């Protein structure tokens, strides 16, 4: 698992990704996917919902599958049952996505292997919102252990900066 939780890979993705396709993004404001989608959009990422059961989420048009998305995807962020991941991983490879990101509890060694062997960056059992907040956001304001150790002056107002 640790190979798919590499801090350097995570930081690179958070800093460089622009377009994130959230597979399983729900319109239900209480679902984890909605929390993450809202946060990522607020922090400047282009969020594309991929969910056959939704027409629009967070003001964006939803697509039934990754193959239907008409633009380049930097990160495929998965909020689905682990059993669905291998198929999504194949689709992510086919559309030429840059990375496969599997959220908390979405643990699929097979899906990770499929994407990783095709050259995609893979992150597993981590939340993209949390990792953004850990490295660039305000997670430290909630008493969470970000692991950050620094003697350098912080950047002013980092919250909404990318």
């Amino acid at each position: 698992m640790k190979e798919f939780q590499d801090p350097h890979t995570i930081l690179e993705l958070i800093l460089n990704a622009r377009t994130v396709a959230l597979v399983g993004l729900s319109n239900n404001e209480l679902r984890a996917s909605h929390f993450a989608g809202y946060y990522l959009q607020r922090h400047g990422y282009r969020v594309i919902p991929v969910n056959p059961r939704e027409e629009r989420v967070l003001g964006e048009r939803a697509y039934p599958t990754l193959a239907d998305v008409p633009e380049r995807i930097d990160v495929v962020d998965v909020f689905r049952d682990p059993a669905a991941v291998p198929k999504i991983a194949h689709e992510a490879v086919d559309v030429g996505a840059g990375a496969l990101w599997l959220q908390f509890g979405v643990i699929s060694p097979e899906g990770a292997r499929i994407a990783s062997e095709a050259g995609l960056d893979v992150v597993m059992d981590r939340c993209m919102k949390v990792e953004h907040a850990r490295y660039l956001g305000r997670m430290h304001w909630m008493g969470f252990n970000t692991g950050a150790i620094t003697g350098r002056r912080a950047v002013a107002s980092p919250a909404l900066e990318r």
Partner: protein
Amino acid sequence: MGDERREFGFHTRAVHAGQRPDPYTGASATPIYQTAGFVFEDTESASAYFNLQEYGNIYSRIMNPTVAAFEERIANLENGVGAVAFASGLAAQAALFFALLEPGDHIAVAKALYGGSTAQLNHLARKLQIEIDWVDMDDPDGWRKAVSPATKTLFAETIANPGGNVLDLETAAAVAQEVGAPLIVDNTFATPYLCRPLEWGADIVVHSATKFIVGNGTTIAGVVVDSGEFNWSNGRFPNIAEPSSAYHGLRFHETFGVYGLLMKLRAETLRDLGAVLAPFNAFLLLLGLETLPVRMERHVQSALAVAHWLQGRPGVSAVRHPALPDSPYRGLVDKYLPLGAGSVFSFDLESGRDGGRRFIEALKLWSHVANVGDTKSLVIHPASTTHRQLSDEELVTAGVAPGTVRLSVGLEDVDDLVWDLERALRAAREATVPA
């Protein structure tokens, strides 16, 4: 970016973790954000903070940047995913049990426990219909015998107050895992410098930060640190896994993953119980943690020297320091506390209750104080203070002899501490020894 992965050492993290030099002023010390509320940027941000969709400061009863720096530092040192601080150690425990337990639940608790915790749990049990099994933590099968399918928590101290019993963490953690309940460990006497229970399978650590963490007896404080490892969605903790009626139907574990319990503890329990840590106290705790490893090294060294000195002195019948060669806990100390077994321990005077009183009254340097973990050396005689209402027989049942004295060895010169103890032992020998 290649050096992002450096694993910094304990001393470095004790000084730096949780603090980022202030972006606006460049202040090198952590500013004390002495404010009740925080001005929102706009209405959208305000809603996002209240909905927990964005991490933002709302009100100091829920979060505060000075307090958060302390929380992150102790979480980092304990190797947890985060922490929530409280106004006292007992407030931290009360909030944690309040968040975890429901009426009818069963908990298994070590019998050798700080008296304040025993009283609190008995009180909670009565009020909330919690059933408690008190466990002999020295019995290798003690935990297994106490748990049942209704058990929701196992609770013990790393080093028990005042008996010095050392918890076999791996054994307790194995039983906790089997039954699907979190092992909660009060790590007050060990501190994360001497032992990190989360690394031995414990799920949650609590502290009275009043003791070695602040280190100088100036501040009452407590904290809960979570490993993030426990599976709250195992079907046994609907209060954390299922939609919460106290937070508009939010599922804390599903939504926040490893941070689920801490989010609930902050956004719901701290919000509702209100035993919040003051920013100024958090500032003192941050100062304390900076020197924790340095102080603990001296504390354990001096305490062991004093324990050795006391052994075999005329008038001293027993010395209960877990790191002494003849201690029954020596094996557990070698395994879990290789850097030292703390600096609080007790010993027995042959001259009983009267001897204890004379001993305390003869001391000039040691202070007679109901606290431990101070730079100053502290002493208390349970039979004439905390356990004064009990008969000699009842004292024995409580694990305290009439002549038991508890020491908290501070940072003074050991020679001076021993000089004072020698004078007091002489005074105690003049007491009438009960027949």
